[in-house]
């Protein structure tokens, strides 16, 4: 559809909307960029627009530098970067019509399927070089793949675990795991909390980033591993009931709920760094601050095992090509540059994340063998994908489905209310019912 006819269509849509609302909605509603979502190849030259989320200042600077160096390294493509506040980023993309999206677009990993469903992302397979594609880690490729095509690759992945304060742990006589193979069970973890409480002035020795709020993506990212490690899952074969509210999951959530008495609300975010708590259940992003505060007293431990083996989260921001881009080739060239070693290393140095490219990961001082965050790399090296969760795999991808927004919203709500004291069985059952209802309302979110 060329642009003038699209413009006419736009005016017609507004007029239609005033006269016949539903007809307009059907013809003009949100995701209508045209049936075919492949981006046009274009000439490989010109100006391309890039959107990314505005996160930590260090990340933003790394990204801006990457753009600057790309622009100055060649004269055919000029990149214009726009940063959108991170908290509202996904909402903004959801609210933007596909035709107005940029050539290159960052997106939060789990939202990929939803954007493909809404025809906002184009497959990148034909535009990104084979070298880039093969250099991506398995986990990164899995996060961006649906229906046999790839829609995005990340500069970095994520790592989730429990940071420990060696001094405090030793003082309380707590035996903590040294690797994935001797991971502590949930019961052992509870015992550790009790032992730490005896030595802690306010009895609160655990931080779970309560200040972030659980009714947010942190809730799902940080605590879906509890569900997975108990043998359940957020959704199985398109149904949440039976998977999310399985008895083992309910009992795992009960255990989680019982830990609240040991949790420091951590409103100022400094509980672990200042030594108020001995354990912090959080992701890689806190490593820079924690290592600065604790130095050699910092240990990195796996999440407790609820029965089905240690499990952890995976996935983070990724880069894709807008469905209506006219310059797929140029967009792909930019992605190649962005995912090159220099930029990936700079970015992961800035945010402490595990690199999502094989070469950068191997060279990373933090994540290589013997490095301080080796555990995270080890976890990512045992990916489960999003549906086949076995006892031996560790890093689970959040469900790759267009209905993910509902799954994360309902799970977050359930987690929030469980943490607030609600009965886990009914909270999880409610969430499962709501998810199933939503899926049935949307015909299972099948991607057309």
């Amino acid at each position, binding site marked *: 559809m060329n642009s003038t006819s699209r413009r006419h269509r736009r005016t017609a849509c507004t007029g239609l909307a005033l006269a016949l*609302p539903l007809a307009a909605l059907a013809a003009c509603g*949100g995701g209508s960029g045209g049936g075919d979502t492949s981006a046009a190849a274009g000439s490989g030259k010109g100006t391309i627009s890039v959107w990314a989320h505005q996160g930590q200042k260090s990340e933003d600077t790394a990204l801006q530098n990457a753009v600057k160096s790309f622009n100055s390294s060649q004269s055919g493509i000029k990149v214009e970067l726009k940063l959108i506040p991170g908290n509202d980023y996904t909402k903004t993309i*959801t609210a933007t019509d596909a035709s107005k999206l940029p050539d290159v677009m960052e997106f939060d990993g789990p939202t990929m399927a939803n954007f493909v*469903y809404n025809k906002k992302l184009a497959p990148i397979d034909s535009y990104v070089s084979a070298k880039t594609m093969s250099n991506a880690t398995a986990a990164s490729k899995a996060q961006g793949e649906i229906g046999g095509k790839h829609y995005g690759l990340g500069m970095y992945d994520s790592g989730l675990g429990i940071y420990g304060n060696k001094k405090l742990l030793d003082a309380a006589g707590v035996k903590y795991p040294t690797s994935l193979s001797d991971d502590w069970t949930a019961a052992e973890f509870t015992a550790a909390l009790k032992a730490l409480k005896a030595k802690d002035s306010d009895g609160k020795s655990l931080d779970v980033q309560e200040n972030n*709020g659980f*009714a947010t993506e942190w809730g799902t990212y940080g605590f879906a591993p509890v569900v997975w490690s108990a043998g359940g899952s957020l959704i199985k074969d398109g149904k949440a009931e039976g998977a999310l509210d399985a008895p083992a999951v309910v009992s795992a959530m009960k255990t989680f709920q019982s830990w609240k008495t040991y949790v420091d609300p951590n*409103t100022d975010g400094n509980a672990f760094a200042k030594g108020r708590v001995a354990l912090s259940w959080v992701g890689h992003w806190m490593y820079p601050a924690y290592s600065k505060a604790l130095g050699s007293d910092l240990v990195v431990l796996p999440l407790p095992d609820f029965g089905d083996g240690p499990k952890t989260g995976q996935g983070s921001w990724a880069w894709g090509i807008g469905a209506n881009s006219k310059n797929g080739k140029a967009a792909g060239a930019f992605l190649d540059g962005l995912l090159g070693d220099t930029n990936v290393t700079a970015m992961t140095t800035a945010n402490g994340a595990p690199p999502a490219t094989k070469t950068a990961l191997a060279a990373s001082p933090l994540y290589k063998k013997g490095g301080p965050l080796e555990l995270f790399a080890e976890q990512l090296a045992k990916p489960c994908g999003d549906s086949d969760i076995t006892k031996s795999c560790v890093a689970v991808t959040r469900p790759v489905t267009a209905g993910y*927004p509902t799954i994360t919203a309902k799970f977050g709500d359930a987690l929030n209310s469980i943490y607030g004291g609600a009965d886990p069985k009914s909270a999880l059952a409610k969430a499962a019912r709501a998810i199933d209802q939503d899926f049935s309302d949307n015909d299972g979110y099948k991607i057309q």
Partner: protein
Amino acid sequence: MKTVEPAHSVPSRRPESPPVTSVTTTRAGRTRNRDWLHGLLMSTPAVAGLIAFVGIPFGYAVVLSFYNVRLGSPLAPRFFGLEQYRRLFTDPDVSGPFLRALLNNLTFAVVVVPVQTGLALALAILLNRKLKAIGLFRSLFFMPVVFPMTLVAVVWRLILARSDQGLLNSALHAVSFGNWGAFDWLGDGATAMASIIVLSVWQGVGFQMVILLAGLQQIPGELYEAAELDRATRRQQFRHVTLPGIRGTLVFVAMLTSVLSFRVFDQVYVLIHGGGLDEDAARTVMYQAVTTAFDQNNIGQASAITVVFFLIVVALTLIQRRVVRPDNED
């Protein structure tokens, strides 16, 4: 809560001013027949704007409530008939939160309207005196009004933080010599709504206070002098001079606060999503509508919530006006 009442409609002893029409036929005669045109012309821009940007979209929302519509979904909207409404009232997973939200809104209104209005009146009386720098004090009490509600929520989140680092908890700890420990003001179901009420009243009382202050200043001083001559006590003066004199303003202010109180949203959203506010105890109907629309992308359901809510508010407002009508010249 923001509301306003210009002083001029205060005195009930003032006869209602009828609209002006030219009845003379002399020099001014030629405008007589054209009043209707001028009235229409003057009203058109605002009314057209309201219809275009409020009326039509609301009608659209009503239509949407009969469909299963998703934000940005490629699926065509599917006619759902009354399904959204059925779910709203009978599906336990949907109606539970919705009815609880209605209850919360009601609780909020029933507490906030008298408390905020009463507090505003008390402050207005307190500030209605000729002290030097009284303007400064008035400004201080008005200051919170100037803060966007989202900012108010952020500041109060810190004050009410459940750790013993939170300002309120430490203050209580100090004042009670260590007997009162850290309490989860926002997260505890019993105090969650109260916390919202406190910060909402804090933000809104200043505006009402200024309006009531203006109303108080319209009461002629002679009435008080006459009352003093009659040896009326201060309480009697209050009951027989102040209250009647300010009645119109008071009723107006109370009514508007109650209408505005049904829109409570910003502070509830910010605090649930980032402050650990107990969702069940504090969710309001607008919170349900917005999260259903934008976090769950369920436009049809959100529209149904909105329509039902609008009808309830209209009904309540009508009842209020009927109850109040005999005394109110409104």
